[in-house]
């Protein structure tokens, strides 16, 4: 092992390999920042080019791209309210309001620092705890997935600003949208209206762009000339230092979010979007200033970004140890491993030890490189928002069109994006937030698979109750669901009583 680690360090600090990794991180950031180009797509495009490289170097570059793309998604989420990748959806909740307040640099530095912390955390977990964590994740069966999805849906209580009932309606609508396409169990064609392109379901990022971006553009131009909320960015000295000092004082927030991200990453099938939403929800739950979330505070950005970057390391744990990709980009990484004749499992740490440790240590380093690039690049990137709204609004629409088309090279996706964009605008004006709708769309497939498969298991075992309520992990998740639902109600009652006392 010591010999392998020594070779790994020699590989990593080879100037050419190191430079290629930095380029990979930088390229990943650019791709992630462009709406519609995902980490999966970037990796898939790059894999053929890495075929000619040495196995260790190719994994270093791919790891760099994966890390960079995951961070890059936050840039457009913060600056124009459009998540560059689905994993940065929760970053929009506080990132964009910060931009609106003229604090784009605060949000970008927070994102860079938190992503770095989360990424390094996930990478260290990947390095040291891969085998035992992979075994724990394997204990998740359909009932656990179902309860995990239900737990995720309890976030609606957090995301619903104004009316909880409207949040629930939005969540149910999102769940219904998630059923479009071929049913996962049974194979029925559902709600496709004759469009064969819809057989694979609604493309998540297309709907995300529609719900988050088009309403924002329309809200931007609906106001009278001169009365728009002008969003500007002026570089301020010492912002980065003060933000980082503030974040250092919140180690619990960063570590909790990183743990959530890593764990969600390890559970096969759950991606960075679920990780960021869950971490955001927990950040709200444990905060003493719950009401400030959604109005633009760095805690929201920190929770989302540290978790989605920690998820990257987590998603590679089952991949390297069991050959099960924890997320879609990890599946592409599996392809890259196989191209070089490597098969996941114990062999990776013995026969291919030098290559594997090169990848693992470079992965930690890639996260540090990502932080440095994000930290120094944020003030330059933030200048984008200084464009006047009359130029910014059409450019955003232009980007949404490119983004929604380039996912599947499908013009129908552009139509779907515009359709949901217009629905999003009307619902936003009538008090329905896009967050719960999108949450339902993301968690729907998990909930359905878990529910229907558990029911089949229950029929086979002869006890539905035992399947849904009799498994240890399920019981823990049910308790978490109950706590998640009851706590906001208690808090609301207390606030009301407090309000009455103050009024008296």
């Amino acid at each position: 092992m010591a010999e392998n680690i020594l070779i790994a360090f020699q590989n990593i600090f080879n100037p050419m390999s190191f430079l290629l990794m930095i380029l990979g991180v930088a390229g990943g950031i650019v791709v992630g920042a462009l709406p519609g180009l995902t980490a999966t797509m970037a990796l898939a495009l790059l894999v053929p080019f890495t075929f000619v490289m040495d196995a260790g170097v190719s994994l270093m570059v791919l790891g760099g791209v994966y890390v960079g793309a995951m961070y890059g998604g936050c840039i457009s989420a913060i600056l124009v309210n459009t998540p560059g990748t689905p994993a940065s959806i929760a970053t929009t909740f506080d990132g964009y309001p910060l931009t609106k307040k003229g604090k784009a640099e605060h949000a970008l530095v927070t994102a860079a620092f938190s992503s770095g912390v989360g990424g390094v955390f996930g990478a260290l977990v990947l390095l040291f705890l891969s085998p035992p964590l992979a075994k724990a994740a394997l204990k998740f069966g359909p009932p656990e997935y179902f309860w995990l999805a239900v737990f995720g849906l309890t976030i609606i209580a957090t995301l619903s600003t104004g009316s909880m009932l409207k949040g629930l309606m939005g969540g149910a609508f999102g769940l219904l949208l998630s059923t479009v396409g071929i049913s996962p169990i049974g194979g029925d064609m559902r709600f496709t209206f004759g469009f064969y392109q819809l057989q694979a379901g609604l493309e998540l990022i297309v709907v995300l762009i529609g719900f988050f971006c088009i309403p924002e553009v329309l809200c931007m131009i609906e106001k009278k000339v001169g009365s728009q909320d002008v969003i500007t960015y002026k570089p301020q000295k010492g912002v980065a230092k003060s933000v980082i000092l503030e974040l250092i004082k919140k180690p619990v927030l960063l570590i909790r979010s990183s743990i959530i991200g890593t764990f969600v990453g390890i559970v096969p099938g759950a991606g960075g979007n679920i990780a960021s939403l869950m971490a955001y929800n927990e950040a709200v739950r444990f905060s003493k200033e719950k009401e400030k979330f959604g109005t633009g505070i760095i805690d929201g950005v920190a929770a989302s970004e540290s978790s989605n970057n920690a998820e990257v390391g987590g998603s590679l744990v089952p991949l390297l140890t069991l050959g099960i990709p924890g997320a879609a980009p990890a599946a592409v990484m599996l392809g890259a491993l196989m191209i070089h004749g490597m098969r996941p499992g114990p062999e990776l740490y013995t026969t291919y030890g030098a290559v594997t440790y090169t990848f693992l240590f470079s992965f930690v380093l890639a996260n540090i490189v990502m932080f440095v690039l994000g930290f120094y690049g944020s003030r330059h990137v933030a200048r984008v928002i200084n464009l006047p709204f009359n130029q910014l609004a059409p450019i955003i629409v232009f980007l949404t069109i490119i983004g929604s088309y380039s996912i599947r090279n499908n013009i129908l996706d552009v139509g779907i994006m515009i359709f949901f964009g217009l629905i999003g605008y009307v619902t936003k004006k009538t008090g329905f937030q896009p967050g719960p709708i999108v949450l339902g769309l993301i968690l729907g497939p998990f909930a359905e698979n878990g529910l229907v498969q558990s029911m089949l298991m229950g029929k086979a075992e002869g006890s539905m109750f035992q399947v849904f309520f009799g498994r240890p992990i399920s019981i823990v998740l049910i308790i978490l669901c109950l706590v998640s639902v009851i706590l906001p109600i208690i808090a609301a009652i207390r606030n009301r009583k407090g309000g009455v006392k103050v009024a008296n």
Partner: protein
Amino acid sequence: MLTSTTLSSLAFLIVAIAAWHMAGDLSELGSFFPRVIAVMLGVFSLTQLIISAIKNIKEKPFSGVESKRLIPMIIGIVAYLIAMILIGFVPSSILYLSFFFWFLSRGSDKDLSLLKSVTFAVLICGGFYAVFYYIFNVPLPEGLLFDW
């Protein structure tokens, strides 16, 4: 009284009923989850309808909206899609960007001339087209009428 909340709740109720009805043609396994969700959506919408009927809250969600710019923008986005299908990505994008750069700048401090708008549009469109087509190898839509 019909408020925006009442109307949106009604719309969601109709969606729920339609989903329940359409799921009837599916197999038991395929229809179970959509029907459960349809019931949930229906119950929430109905509750919201009842609450808004009791409370009778006056809402003006579209007050202060300047339709002179909003409606052309909505039409413009839809027309952009149609134009893209017909004449392809590059010309439709140049047309859309040029028009809205010019149209939205009217009356503002930074008024753009039509020539400047077109130049700006060509540069942006060309730049992004090059990046996507040549670097990312992502082909952007070609029109039905012309190959661009």
